């Protein structure tokens, strides 16, 4: 079945430590790929996106993500986490094709907790 999977429901890291959040997708053709962040009481904010080209993409707030076609993955990384990064992170895709309506399909989300 077509899906977006975020294997880690909850991750805790220490402030200053590096972070990697995993995302895998299962679609016939590589979809458009996105990472969104949701802070408490706020809407979802786009961190970064991948459509084509360089497989390492830079986003806002010091985040980056790497697309790996062979692994059907689009993992989110940050070299040094700040306490303000505590939030819920969503991987999402939009399928390619003429029937594309921009519908985002989300993963389950990963809750990031940052320890002082």
């Amino acid at each position, binding site marked *: 079945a077509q899906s977006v999977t975020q294997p880690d429901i909850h991750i805790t890291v220490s402030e200053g430590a590096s972070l990697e959040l995993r995302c895998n997708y299962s679609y016939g053709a590589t979809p*458009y790929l996105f990472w969104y962040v949701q802070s408490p009481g706020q809407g979802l*904010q786009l961190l970064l996106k991948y459509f084509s080209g360089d497989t390492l993409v830079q986003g806002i707030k010091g985040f980056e993500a790497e697309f790996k076609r062979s692994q059907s993955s689009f993992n989110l990384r940050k070299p040094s986490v700040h306490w303000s990064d505590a939030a819920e992170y969503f991987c999402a895709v939009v399928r390619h094709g003429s029937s594309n309506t*921009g519908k985002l399909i989300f993963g389950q989300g990963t809750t990031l907790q940052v320890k002082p």
Partner: protein
Amino acid sequence: EPEVTQTPSHQVTQMGQEVILRCVPISNHLYFYWYRQILGQKVEFLVSFYNNEISEKSEIFDDQFSVERPDGSNFTLKIRSTKLEDSAMYFCASSETNSPPGIQYFGAGTRLSVL
């Protein structure tokens, strides 16, 4: 920075009642969406709207749901007869383009509680 505005932030209603969730998308955007997130579950697509008509809807979006852009600025989601299982956070989003997919900007959401 322009933002998507949703009202109210929290709506409490009795089962069987009609509710209207309101959204003001970003002014030059042409594509509009509703998503919902039941507590503890993933964000789910409900409907997309372009050029005054629905372009895609999910299985969730049955006859009890409708969307409207009544005045060129607001975008509303109506649930005619709410059920307990409609309790969720509802997000409105808008984007400027669609092909390739535009960035969707999300509102802060309306928490709907059906009692």
